[in-house]
């Protein structure tokens, strides 16, 4: 770049068309004058008619030379530099006078300053040159204060200026043309200079862009290469692969060279899964879309939504792998979709561990329920033995054993239930449920506990039954959980109020206590499995932290909401909001539906 610009500056110098400096233009006149002066000194007797005038003319020429030097020093060209030929003309005129006047040998010198003057821009300088010539030629007559005496003198005074004038016109025209050419050249030079500058800056810009692009490319590449646990596959609109990161190589067993530009992303999918999905999306079989399977794969991304969905990848060796794939569109600089990106995460282990956990919980639950069944069954046999009735004390001990066996049983049930919730299998038996009955039953069954804990248990019911669509057992469990929680966390002498209200299209169950409260910072963790509030552990309130998780899951499955208001030391309120039953009771059969079917019902 810098080499170019230096060459460019040199070229400009070679093309320089600036006018010569005044000193240079004056030089011929000065040399010729000096030569004339030398001749007059050498042949004084022969040539000089007025010695004093000769000295004057020399002085005037010195002045002209000084002027020329001065104008050469000033940076800018100025019209005033024409004083130099003017003064020179005067000096030559005086020289001519001093060396014989009209018969002087040195009349021809006049041509030198005239050339200078007439070369100046503008026709008027031709006139100036002619007048100057005339004046110089007529000077002897002016000094001698007489008119030309005869016709030949007149002619000499007119003819020579006319010839000089013609020469001046030619010079003026030539120099005008020369100037025009110079201007053209100058313009071309400046245009060239501009173009060169532009192309130089464009080149610099391109170079900078290229550097940026390379940096961006390196960044993208290093990010892609760093993702080794996930496969990142990019395709064009037809599914032809053009991006294949190391994660994809590990996951699918092909190198980038084997995949890019050669394979389609749907080659790595189970055809059955793609078919099933395209049927789900109601694609006409094989007709309108190029590849129904690929269209099914990118359906959401095509509509501008990122989608995460579980699929099965088929490796090059035919083995299969369960993956969760996020599909996103790729855009060009006009925001047109030009392809898709598929980021796949191997979920085989996650699925396996989730399945093992479910299996484990199922097994544990079964294994715990069997001995508990024995314990409870045999305890009942002891209690009901008519032949050997128990003493009051024995009955009391038996009661404790039975109560604790039931506690264990409830815990096992809760564990199994949360496992079902977390794995998404959550059976609900849907019917029209009168919430007033559910709430009353829950309060009734909590009475003995409240009595034992010395806590006042109040119920506020509306006149209406307030029905919801749901699983009566699960809703009862939710109410039981909230009431038993409230009782557990309320000190002796406190109060728990259970109220049922209708609010808009909702049924609201509120369980409010005057208990120890929950710190605000812990409110958002309340529904996490096995979470226990610090106030609970500090006050040694028993529990494992499953009740609220289960209650929340039940309420959510009923499309309801569970809210909490709490102040430490003042009390807590749990507010369960459920959508009111909207279907007419008569058309509501008491059937068992899966949760999915229930949720899929259109709201009327």
């Amino acid at each position, binding site marked *: 770049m810098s080499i170019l610009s230096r060459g460019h500056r040199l070229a400009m110098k070679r093309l320089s068309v600036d006018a010569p400096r005044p000193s240079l233009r004056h030089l011929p006149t000065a040399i010729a004058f000096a030569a004339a002066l030398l001749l007059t000194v050498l042949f004084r007797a022969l040539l000089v008619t007025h010695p004093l005038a000769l000295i004057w003319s020399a002085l005037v020429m010195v002045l002209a030379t000084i002027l020329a030097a001065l104008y050469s020093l000033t940076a800018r060209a100025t019209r005033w530099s024409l004083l130099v030929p003017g003064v020179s003309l005067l000096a030559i005129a005086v020289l001519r006078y001093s060396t014989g006047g009209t018969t002087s040998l040195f009349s021809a010198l006049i041509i030198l300053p005239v050339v200078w003057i007439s070369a100046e821009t503008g026709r008027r300088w031709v006139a100036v040159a002619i007048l100057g010539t005339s004046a110089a030629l007529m000077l002897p007559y002016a000094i001698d204060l007489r008119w030309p005496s005869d016709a030949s003198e007149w002619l000499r005074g007119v003819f020579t200026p006319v010839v000089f004038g013609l020469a001046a016109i030619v010079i003026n025209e030539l120099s005008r043309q020369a100037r025009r050419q110079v201007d053209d050249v100058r313009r071309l030079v400046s245009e060239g200079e501009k173009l060169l500058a532009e192309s130089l800056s464009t080149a610099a810009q391109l170079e900078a862009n290229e550097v940026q692009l390379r940096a961006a490319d390196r960044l993208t590449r290093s990010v892609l290469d760093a993702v080794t646990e996930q496969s990142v596959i990019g395709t064009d609109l037809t599914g032809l692969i053009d991006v294949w990161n190391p994660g994809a190589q590990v996951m699918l067993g092909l190198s980038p060279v084997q995949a890019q530009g050669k394979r389609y992303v749907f080659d790595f999918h189970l055809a059955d899964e793609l078919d099933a999905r395209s049927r789900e999306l109601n694609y006409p079989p094989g007709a309108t879309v190029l590849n129904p399977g690929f269209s099914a794969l990118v359906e959401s991304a095509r509509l501008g939504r990122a989608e995460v969905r579980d699929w099965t990848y088929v490796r090059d060796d035919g083995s299969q792998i369960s993956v969760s794939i996020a599909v996103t569109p790729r855009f060009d600089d006009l925001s047109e979709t030009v392809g898709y990106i598929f980021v796949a995460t191997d979920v085989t282990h996650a699925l396996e561990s989730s399945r093992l956990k479910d299996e484990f919980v*199922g*097994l544990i*639950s*079964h294994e715990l*329920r*069997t*001995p*508990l*069944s*024995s314990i*409870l*069954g*045999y305890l*009942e*046999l002891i209690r*009901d033995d008519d032949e050997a009735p128990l003493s009051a004390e024995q009955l009391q001990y038996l009661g404790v054993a039975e109560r604790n066996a039931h506690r264990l*049983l409830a815990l096992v049930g809760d564990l*199994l239930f949360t496992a*079902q919730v977390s794995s998404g*299998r959550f*059976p609900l038996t849907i019917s029209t449920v009168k919430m007033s009955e559910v709430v009353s039953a829950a309060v009734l069954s909590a009475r003995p506990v409240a009595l034992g804990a010395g806590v006042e248990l109040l119920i506020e019911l509306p006149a209406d039954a307030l029905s919801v669509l749901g699983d009566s057992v699960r809703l009862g469990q939710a109410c039981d959980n909230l009431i038993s929680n409230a009782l557990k966390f309320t000190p002796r002498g406190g109060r728990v109020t259970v109220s049922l209200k209708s609010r808009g299209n909702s049924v609201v169950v509120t369980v409010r206590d005057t208990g120890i409260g929950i710190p605000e910072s812990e409110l958002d963790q309340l529904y996490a499995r096995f979470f226990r509030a610090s106030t609970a552990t500090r006050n040694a309130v028993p529990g494992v932290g499953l009740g609220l998780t289960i209650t929340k899951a039940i309420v959510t499955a009923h499309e309801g909401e569970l809210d909490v208001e709490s102040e430490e030391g003042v009390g807590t309120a749990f507010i369960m909001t459920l959508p009111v039953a909207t279907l007419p009771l008569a058309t509501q059969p008491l059937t*068992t539906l899966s949760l999915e079917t229930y949720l899929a019902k259109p709201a009327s």
Partner: protein
Amino acid sequence: MDLGVTAHLIAGPKRAVIADDDADIRALVSIAVRRAGLEVVAEESDGVAALEAVRRLQPDLAILDVSMPAMSGLEVCRSVRAESSLDGVRLVLLSAGAEDRSRSIGLAAGADDYLIKPFSPKMLATALAEMMGLTEMIGHVE
């Protein structure tokens, strides 16, 4: 005196086969069955043995645990229902309740009733007596 009691007096008590892999539960069920007025003719600890016992003894009632080694209670139910010679056998499934939608599956497999552990021996006895038409026999046997 109703027909059930008459039949009982004439042909002897109705007979039951019990199958559960847990011996204590087996004993508990056995007590409830006897209290309901039935005679326990076989106690088995796995599904294959239970099916064999039902085929051999052709009892009036079989109480089967759902999860048993070798063959589940559900499979025993299906096998029994597949044999016309065993039409008269009433089937009751007992489940530890860990299975999804188990009740409907149990009934679909051919069970007449589906009970969940833990069960109250007294209530099991009442339910069985009702099912077998032996309501008045409760507490009269043993």
